[in-house]
Every structure is written in C-alpha cells, then in structure tokens.
C-alpha cells in the first residue's frame, strides 16, 4: 500500500486518537499514571539507597574484622595466614594482600597498591583491575613494622542489585505508561460517547427542536448534572414558548369568529348599498383589511396544526419531480401574467417518503413567493435534483444573507416585501411542513436572487416518529 494511502487511512484514526487524548478522563489517567510512576521511582530509589547503605556497612564490618585478625598476627605468621585465607576462598570474593613499605607485592592476590587507596583504614570502592577482576571494596592499614595490609571484598552484587533496581524501574515505567494510555483511552471512550450524544442533542435544541432533551444516565455524575441543568432550562424555554404560542393561537382562534361575523355583516351591508354608493368602496376596503387579518390568523392556526401533527402520518413514496411539475403547472398562468418565466426540470422517477399534499403546499408557497418577488422579465425555476432535493430559484432581488435565517421565523417580513400583501407566514408554513418531514430547508444567495432548497435526505433531527 502506498504511503499516501496509508496516511489517508490513518487520518480518521489519528483524528480519533486526538479527540480521545483531549478528553478530561484521558488527561487525568495520564496524569495519575505519571504520578504513580514517580512514586514507584522514589520508592525503588529509597529501597536501593537503603540496601546499598546496609550492604556497604556490612562489608565494612567484615573487612574491619578480617583486618583486625591479620593485624593481631606476628610479622612471621601474616603471610601464612593470608595464604590460608585465600586458599579457603573458593568463590574468590576476597582480597588479602601484604605489600612492602613502597608498595611492592609480598603476599596475596594483589600485585600493586591500587590507585586511590590509602593505608588509613577508610573503605574505598574500586573498579575491576587486572589483579582482581570484579568491583571491590577495599581497606588498607599500615602495619606497625611499615608494611601495608590490604583487605577487600567483591561487591559486584551491589552493582548487580543496582542494575536490577534500574531494570525494575524501567519496566514498571513502561508498564505503567502503557496501561495508563490504554486505560485512559478506553475510559475516555464512554464519556466521549456521552459527550457526543449531549452535543448532538444540544445542537438539535439549538436548531429549534425544543421537544428534544439531553440524555441523562442513572449514574448521577457531573455529566448528568450538567445534562439535567440544560434539560431544566430547555423545559422552561419550551414552557414559555408554548405560552407565547398558546396565547397567539388563542387570540387567533378567538378573534376569528367575531371577525368573520363582522365581515359577513359588512358584506351584506355593502351589497345592499348598490354600486353607485361611495360608501360601498369604503366597506370593500374594510373587507379587504379584515381578509388580511383573517388570512394571518388562518396561517397561524395552520402552523400550529402542522406542529401538532405526528411525523410519518400519511407518508407515501412521492416523486419530487412530479411535485415540481405540478407546482409549475399550477403557477404557470400567474407567472405569465407577471411577465416572469417559470421553468421546471428534473428527471421523474425519484422517490422520497413524504405527504405529497403537504409537500405540494410547501412547494406552492415557495413558488408563489418566488413569482411575487421576481420583477417582470425575470425567471423562476423549480426543479428536483439528486440528493434528493427540491429547489426553487429566482433571479429577483434575493434576501440579504443576514436576513436569511430571520425570514423563516414567524411574522418576519423583510425589507423587500413591505409593499407586497401576504401574511408573512408563508415561509413559516413551509418551514413547519419541512420540519414535519424531517427534511431541511435552507435559503441561499443565488447571485442574483434567492434559492430555496428543501433537502429531502432523511434527517433524524425531526419530530419523534
């Protein structure tokens, strides 16, 4: 496999590792691992240091006792004692030597006075030499008659012990660090998964799905405390929103009846006036205004009906290209009357799960809107694209980017539609229908003009099924 391919393959793993290594759990685990490693290091260090002290002390006592034995001997006996001593030292761990006043060898297993050793009775550690091929601890004493006695002992076991301790330190460091990394990564996985779930829920709430809640486990840990706090906040926001919405709907609902009655009465009055009567014109003006108010109320109630609906009720396999064509057929004459060309494209045969009547209503709203805001000579296009998505695009003045999110909100009417009649709720109805389907609505700058896209790829971020 070429390196670049391997790098490509490794990239997600690297990303994943990076993400895991950034989690609090991973960091804590590594930190604990390091503290633990330092602890072990200190412990082993102290053990080593104490053992060395003890062993040196013991060797010194042995050396001193042996030297004392030699010192008590007569000058004539001494060489013999040394010889005998060496003869019984099968393991060859002892140094016994008698040197002349100027350091020439007289007896024993040293051929010269080792460098660094002085005949003052202080113990000295010396590296292996040609005479004694192991590390040794030595003392030297000057005999009353001037010759020098050297007594020593092989202490290579101390060096070996040091090596063992160092090795133990090395291995435990490796084991601790590896275990720490693996534990850290695996312990971080679960919290990371939970944080991801929290993040996803948060994003959906942020996108306006106030029915969504953060997942809470039975562990009552800090993540749960956090999630519960957020849930409480969202509940409160939802309650307040529901109150506002409820109040709006109640007003819309309650005012519709008297307004309809008033309109009917006024209409009868207008008909009784006769065409020549100038008051008829006033009555018709009032009727038009009442119709605008009633239209708004109807749209508000329509949105709440849509929001109260359950998803997937009445869904069937629907061809988006077919809907696009029907919308173009329905609005063709309106576009023609406005001097706007209305075109449709898209290959038939695509299939999405949708309520065709509702989706057609949404599409009609978008097409109506596009025709309304496109000046004569302009062009509106409604098409089904791969994705699948349905696109309604015009080359009118468009919507400034800053306003694109706002126009989807209820009652928002941008700068461009001050002078055009309408409830200002058309796009809110579209948004409600799209949300009901679990689809996604976005507005884009078509440069020039506006492009409204209903993205029909299934999103899970909809209403509960």
């Amino acid at each position, binding site marked *: 496999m070429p390196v670049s391919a391997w790098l490509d393959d490794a990239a997600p793993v690297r990303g994943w590792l990076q993400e895991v290594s950034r989690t609090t759990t991973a960091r804590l685990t590594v930190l604990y691992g390091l503290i633990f490693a330092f602890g072990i290091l200190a412990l082993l260090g102290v053990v080593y240091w104490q053992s060395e002290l003890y062993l040196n002390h013991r060797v010194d006592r042995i050396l001193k006792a042996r030297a004392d034995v030699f010192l008590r001997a007569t000058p004539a006996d001494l060489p013999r004692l040394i010889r005998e001593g060496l003869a019984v030292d099968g393991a060859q761990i002892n140094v016994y030597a008698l040197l002349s006043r100027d350091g020439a060898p007289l007896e024993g297993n040293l051929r010269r006075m080792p460098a660094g050793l002085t005949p003052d009775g202080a113990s000295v550690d010396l590296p292996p030499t040609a005479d004694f091929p192991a590390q040794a601890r030595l003392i030297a004493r000057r005999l009353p008659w001037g010759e020098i006695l050297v007594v020593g002992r092989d202490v290579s076991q101390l060096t070996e012990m040091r090596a063992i301790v160092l090795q133990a330190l090395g291995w435990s460091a490796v084991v601790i660090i590896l275990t720490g990394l693996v534990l850290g990564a695996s312990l971080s996985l679960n919290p990371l998964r939970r944080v991801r779930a929290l993040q996803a829920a948060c994003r959906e709430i942020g996108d306006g799905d106030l029915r969504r809640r953060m997942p809470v486990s039975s562990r009552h840990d800090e993540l749960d405390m956090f999630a519960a706090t957020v849930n409480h906040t969202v509940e409160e926001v939802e309650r307040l929103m529901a109150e506002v919405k409820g109040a709006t709907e109640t007003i819309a609902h309650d005012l519709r009846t008297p307004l309809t009655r008033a309109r009917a009465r006024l209409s009868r009055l207008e008909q009784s006036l006769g065409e020549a009567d100038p008051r008829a014109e006033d009555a018709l003006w009032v009727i038009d205004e009442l119709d605008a108010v009633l239209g708004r109320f109807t749209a508000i109630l329509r949105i709440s009906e849509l929001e109260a609906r359950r998803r997937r009720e009445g869904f069937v396999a629907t061809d988006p290209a077919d809907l696009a064509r029907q919308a173009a057929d329905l609005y063709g*004459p309106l576009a023609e009357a406005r001097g706007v060309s209305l075109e449709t494209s898209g290959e038939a045969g695509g299939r999405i799960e949708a309520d065709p009547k509702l989706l057609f209503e949404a599409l009609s709203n978008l097409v109506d809107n596009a025709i309304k805001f496109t000046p004569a000579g302009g062009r509106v296009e409604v098409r089904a694209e791969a994705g699948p998505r349905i696109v309604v695009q015009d080359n009118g003045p468009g919507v400034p980017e800053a306003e694109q999110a706002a126009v989807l909100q209820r009652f928002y009417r941008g700068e461009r539609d001050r002078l055009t009649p309408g409830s200002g709720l058309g796009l809110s109805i579209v948004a409600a229908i799209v949300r009901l389907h679990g689809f996604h609505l976005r507005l884009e700058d078509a440069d020039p003009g506006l492009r409204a896209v209903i993205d029909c790829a299934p999103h899970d971020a909809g209403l509960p099924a």
Partner: protein
Amino acid sequence: MAKVLVIEDDDATAQEMESCLVAAGHQVRREADGADGLQAALGGGFDAITLDRMLPGMNGLEVVGRLHGAGVYTPVLMVSALSDVDERIAGLRAGGDDYLTKPFDPGELAARLEVMLRRRSWVREASPVLQVGELELDLVRHSARRGAREIELLPMEFKLLEFMMRNAGQTLSRRMIFETVWEYYFDPGTNLIEVYVSRLRKAIDAPGERPLIRTVRGQGYKIDAG
C-alpha cells in the same frame, strides 16, 4: 326552496345558520344531538343536511356512515372547527359531499349548500351540454363555443368554466373554486385564482361582447344565469 336539516350542537352557530339559510329561501329544521339528527335524517324528506363534525351522542363521521348504511344519500355538508387537510379528507371520505371550516361566512354556507344541491341535479339530468346564455360547453366533445365562435380552452380553464356554468347565478368564492376545481385545500396565495379567471374571461369574451363572468368584490366570481 329546499328542506335543510341542520345538525349542530352550538346554539349560536345553529341560529346563525338557520337565519342565513332561511334568508336564502330554504326551510330549516334544527337538531342539536348526533343521534336525534340521525333519526331526523333517516325520516327522510330533506334535500340537504349540514352536519357538525363533533357532536354529543354521535360524531359527524359516524352519522354519515349510518345514513349511507341505511341507504339514505341526502347530500351532506360537513361543518367543523378542524381545518386540517386530513380532517377535510376524512370528512369527505366518510361520505360528506363538502366540507366547511368554522368560523364561516354565512354567505359561503349558503353558496356551498347551493352548489351541493345543484350537483345532485346534474347527476340526475346528466346532460352532455351545459348552456348559459349563448355560451355552450360540450362535456363529451370537450369543446366550448359562444354563439358561432369556437373557444380554445386549456384543460384547467375548461374545468373552471364547467364549475362556474354548472353554478351559474351563484357567487363562488376563490376558496370554493380552488377546492372544487383543483382539489387542493390550502391557501394558494395572493391572486392565483384571479389570474385563472381573467384568462378565462379573455377566452370567452371577444372584444365588444357582453362580459359573462362577474367579479363580486369581497366575495368571488359568478356567471350570470341566462
């Protein structure tokens, strides 16, 4: 004059409906309960029934079902506060002939009832040619003429003209037109129907001829009978 049975539990609404229908020249009997309404309807002798969707005793859909079960096919106008498209469709599917959402303009109630009554009579007459004054619409040959002049119509224009001619003399609201001719149940936006009607006007009224389609401002459109 027709005999109309109003089955409606809200007294104020029932009162309003009665006065409106009486003003339109109909004879009205009121029932406030689903079961009583059903009994009255089964007794027969009514030309049309307005039926509230939600009633004490028995809901509107069930009343229609029982009527049909008993072989009574008096035209039924469902009246309901539920405006959702699905509710309308459920009402129509259960056997209602038309669906009106509360609150309604009494004028619209009368108009819908009228359209419904006339639909019954077309079915009986089953005439292949509609005629209003000098305007003729041949439903079999799918052609239209005004006097000697052949008129070219697009399919939707033909359907629209047929609906208006069948209800000549009756003011038809934009909403009724959209629901009956296109069978869509949403607000089609600013002036879609207006555009369709004006195209139809251009087609059937040649320069100098008397305009046949009248705009009734604040109400809708109508073709004057005869």
